[in-house]
């Protein structure tokens, strides 16, 4: 029985870890240690948590389900389609979506049990299949939004003004899965299968039926997660839940569930989930780089498991795991969780008192003598994107000139849900101004409104949110302007007629789809002899754009121009043209001048369209400082923006200017 203690030991270690996280972030993250933030953490964890709950019994059987994230995408699309296009009542649409989840889970179950596929492979297949169907159904573009408020309440509302509305759903599922795994005959069978599938079969357990149950339930739960996700973001797109499967698996394994099956508990999963979610939230509230989350999570994961294994070796007595040892270990867990919860609530009162004091200092910096030192938070769409990296330089320059504290953070990949989380963290932290390059307007507007309600100035840049969700939009160029400039360039390069193809970023990228819309409109209106032959995705990968361009040139030998509208796609396409040796195909598009310089100079890329990204970042910070200090307010028609000089204000838009067209003649003047 020694290892029972060890397991409790590893649970204790996890609780210790969570408490340590809380302790550290309570110091580093302003307002981290508050009741409101505690509930926010709960909200953030729900979708991921549902997947982790569903995966726990799956992994306990010794299987795995990689398709849950894709399932969310498919369900989101199905839901949106039923509601908007088929005009189903929202409840019926939701019910049908849950059925779709069941069906998807059943597909996994059938191929695994009837056709004997290994779960890893089968769900790897459905991982692509579900996402692929979602993209195919929506052509990648469609974006369902404007759901009724009563539905959005599920993801955005508060019960009694404080408890996130999705929390009860999560609790319900938590209780359900706990009963299933720890208190039901199914759970007992699942555990026996995980330890010894043959042994279970020889005991007369219907192994295939039990396996089918967990995979089907997993699909169903993913559907529930997807509904909450849609309600949370206010929009349904085929990219919902991208990458969630890996994080959910991480949570389950971190919680002590053995990947080979048999051992595992819902308690452990909840603890693993908490450790991850608290870590992510804490890092954001503390304005630590987002990349740290992944690095620390993986380090913790390996450390926990390695320690567990070493303990195994130290005490190689077989273990009496079981559902039912509620007794000591789980009581300890329970009481510790309650203790931690009450600590947070109790502590929050103290922070509340602190924060209502006039002139509270969010970063803890000493008040400046003459002017106040503002904390300005700026979020790119995705942190690693070279375009936004080049914006950051200008932003930092401005912050330095202004003597402001700049927080530059955001998700590492395009993900509206994560943008939400970062904004939430900033609200909790308490900053003066938030500026966001919005991945998805309906998905982010709610939380931006919340920020405004808390007295934070909200600006958007690069791409706008819904107008009432922000104070100002720093407009580098309208989608219309970009689309028209690109169409004009295409017309100029092609000499007024001929075929051209577009290589876009991801098929689901809202920005690019918007530009394509205006490109098409402009061509119809002004250049009827230009012919757009096809649109191919590049997934924002230079190499993928390269091979797409190669293929396009062969399939469409008369094509005269490739228009690449994702920053890495332009050099990719240009390199393909260069390597083909073709002189009759040109490249243009939207990209960074530095990336494209060799190709522009070689005359392969005739031109590259973009605004001055450094200036954009600079202007964003300038404008948000002024908004924070109140000099940028309704009625102002222009501002003095440092080295940019006088910038006009058009209503609630701060306009940077027209896009630049970089050509061989001028590209050397720009360095970004």
């Amino acid at each position, binding site marked *: 029985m020694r290892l029972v203690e060890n397991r409790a030991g590893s649970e204790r270690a996890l609780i210790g870890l969570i408490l340590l996280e809380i302790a550290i972030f309570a110091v580093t993250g302003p307002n981290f240690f508050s009741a409101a933030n505690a509930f926010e953490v709960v909200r953030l964890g729900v979708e991921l948590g549902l997947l982790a709950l569903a995966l726990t019994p799956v992994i306990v059987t010794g299987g795995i389900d990689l398709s849950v994230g894709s399932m969310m995408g498919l369900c989101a699309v199905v839901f949106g389609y039923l509601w908007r296009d088929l005009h189903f009542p929202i409840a019926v649409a939701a019910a049908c979506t849950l059925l779709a989840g069941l069906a998807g889970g059943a597909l996994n179950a059938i191929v695994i049990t009837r056709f004997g596929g290994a779960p890893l492979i089968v769900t790897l297949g459905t991982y692509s299949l579900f996402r692929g169907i979602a993209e195919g159904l929506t052509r990648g573009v469609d974006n369902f939004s404007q759901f009724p408020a009563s539905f959005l309440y599920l993801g955005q509302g508060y019960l009694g003004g404080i408890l996130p509305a999705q929390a009860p759903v999560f609790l319900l599922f938590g209780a359900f899965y706990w009963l299933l795994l720890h208190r*039901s*005959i199914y759970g*007992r*069978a699942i555990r026996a299968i995980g*330890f010894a599938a043959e042994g279970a079969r020889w005991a007369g357990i219907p192994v295939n039926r039990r396996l089918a149950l967990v995979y089907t339930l997993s699909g169903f739960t993913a559907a529930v997660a997807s509904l909450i996700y849609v309600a949370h973001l206010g929009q349904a797109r085929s990219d919902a839940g991208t990458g969630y499967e890996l994080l959910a698996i991480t949570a389950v394994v971190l919680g002590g569930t053995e990947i080979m099956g048999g051992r595992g508990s819902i308690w452990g999963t909840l603890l693993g989930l908490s450790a991850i979610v608290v870590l992510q939230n804490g890092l954001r509230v503390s304005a630590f780089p987002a990349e740290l989350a992944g690095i620390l999570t993986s380090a913790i994961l390996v450390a926990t498991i390695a320690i567990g294994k070493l303990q195994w070796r130290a005490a190689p007595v*077989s273990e009496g*795991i079981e559902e*039912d040892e509620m007794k000591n270990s789980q009581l300890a867990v329970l009481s510790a969780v309650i203790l931690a919860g009450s600590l947070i609530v109790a502590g929050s009162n103290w922070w509340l008192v602190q924060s209502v004091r006039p002139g509270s200092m969010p970063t803890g910096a000493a008040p400046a003598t003459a002017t106040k030192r503002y904390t300005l938070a700026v979020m790119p769409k995705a942190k690693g994107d070279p375009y936004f990296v080049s914006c950051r330089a200008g932003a930092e320059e401005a912050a330095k000139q202004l003597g402001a504290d700049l927080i530059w953070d955001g998700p590492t990949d395009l993900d509206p849900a994560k943008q939400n989380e970062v904004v939430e963290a900033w609200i909790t932290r308490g900053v003066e101004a938030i500026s966001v390059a919005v991945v998805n307007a309906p998905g982010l507007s709610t939380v931006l409104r919340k920020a405004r309600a808390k007295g934070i100035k909200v600006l958007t840049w690069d791409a706008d949110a819904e107008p009432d969700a922000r104070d100002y939009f720093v407009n580098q160029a309208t989608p219309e302007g970009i689309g028209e400039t690109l169409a004009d360039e295409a017309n100029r390069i092609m000499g007024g007629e001929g075929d051209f193809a577009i290589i876009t970023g991801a098929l689901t990228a809202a920005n690019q789809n918007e530009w394509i819309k205006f490109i098409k409109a402009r061509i119809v209106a002004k250049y009827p002899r230009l012919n757009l032959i096809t649109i191919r995705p590049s997934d924002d990968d230079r190499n993928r754009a390269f091979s797409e361009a190669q293929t396009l040139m062969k399939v469409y030998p008369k094509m005269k121009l490739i228009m690449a509208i994702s920053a890495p796609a332009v050099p990719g396409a240009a390199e393909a043209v260069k390597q083909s040796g073709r002189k009759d195909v040109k490249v243009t598009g939207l990209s960074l001048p530095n990336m494209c310089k060799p190709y522009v100079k070689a005359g392969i890329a005739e031109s590259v369209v973009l605004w001055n990204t450094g200036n954009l970042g600079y202007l964003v910070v300038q404008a948000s400082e002024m908004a924070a200090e109140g000099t940028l307010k309704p009625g102002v028609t222009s501002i003095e923006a440092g080295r940019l000089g006088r910038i006009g204000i058009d209503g609630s838009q701060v306009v940077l200017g027209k896009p630049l067209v970089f050509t061989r003649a001028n590209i050397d003047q720009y360095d970004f």
Partner: protein
Amino acid sequence: MNLLEARGIEKRYGGVRALKHVSFDLRAGEVHAIVGENGAGKSTLIRILTGAVQADAGTVTLDGQTLLHNSPHRSRQLGIAAIYQQPAIFPDLTVAENIALVNEPGGLLRRIDWQARRATAKELLDAIGADIEPERIAGTLSMPEQQIVEIAKALGGNVRVLILDEPTASLTERETKKLFGIIARLRERGAGIVYISHRLEELSRIADRITVLRDGETIDTRQAAEVDVRTLIRLMAGRDLSAVFPKREVPIGEPVLRVNGLHCAEAGIRNITFEVRAGEILGFAGLVGAGRTQLAETLFGLTPPESGTISIAGQAIEIRKPEDAIRAGIAYVPEDRRRHGIVGELPVRANSTLAILNRIASGPLLQMAAERTLAESWVAKLGVKTDGIDAPANSLSGGNQQKVAIARWIATEPRVLILDEPTQGIDVGAKAECHRIMCDLAEAGLAIVMISSELAEILGMSDRVAVMRGGEITGISGRSEATAESILGMALPA
């Protein structure tokens, strides 16, 4: 000087002392047999000799050199080869490769000569007169064929000590003769052979000396020529045979299980017809691979039959899956206890109730208290020695694990209980208790099918004995007619 010598070997597994100060020696050119009941420690001893398991105390010497840090690989290089009961093959590789991987010398960067590999394999297989294609995938071989590959493998190296654990259990007479020929040649070359067998009668043909192990202790070493089978059995059991089998005569009732013309190609059984009556113990004898376990698995729904009828108490039933069998009142305590009989990591409590989950639940939810009560009562009834019902099943000794496995199936309140090798690998005391339980169950009116490879057990416990060979029943005889000779006659290939 002795070729191989083991002195004062001690080995513990958890709480069980598997070997107690065991000593053993082997001279060059001799065949030294080790006999003992299942669980006497024979397998552990040979695993220590080959380095597959490390002894807790004691020394093993080869040519007077102490073997330190012994490993299977090292002992192999020194010329100690072993054939275990469970073939250690690579199921996805060819026969030739299975033989070569163990025998060919040299490092990982050595090039493989496939021609030579095949030729060597062919040669070795021919030498034992086995008709196995070297190119076949080992996983597709039958158990006896795999055993033959193991023998070929062991002969491939430059063997000085060859350890054979039940090599003839699944061999035909022809193959056995070939094997004895090979053994004779090896001893002429000066190799020593450690020979473990349950077929006591063949020892006089092959062995020079016989060492008897009982309960992990060396009981005696005798010249083979000087002992008869009866003496050996007495030494092995530590008492007279009759005392070992507490068979009680109970009234035999109506037929419960009736099987008629059962066929199953997947299981390899043909034309099976027999019946078992309430209170009766029907023993199934035969060689390993004769189809007895396959028959049991077919009756239990693991390999559904293609044709033939099964009826319980006169009622025809169809069995497609284990649930059907359980519903019909058939329970099956399987042969491979660790893989099928129990789920080792689950506690005793969960193991004992795994087949009756529905009965300890209200709706889908388990009634924990009811389960505990039930499990406690079984532990008490069968006298399972455990730290408590929450102890993991694999922390128990083999005999107690077996009792848990039996408890699981008695709990289903079956009408027919199939016991497959019920006392394999458990100690004498536990064995007697298992037999007592069987008698109690028969007395309670169960029809019992007992599959056993131990002739003494078959003869001692059965009311009638059915013998199988090659997937068919070759004869059924009553308790009074069945003798060791008659059973062997029907079991061995003509």
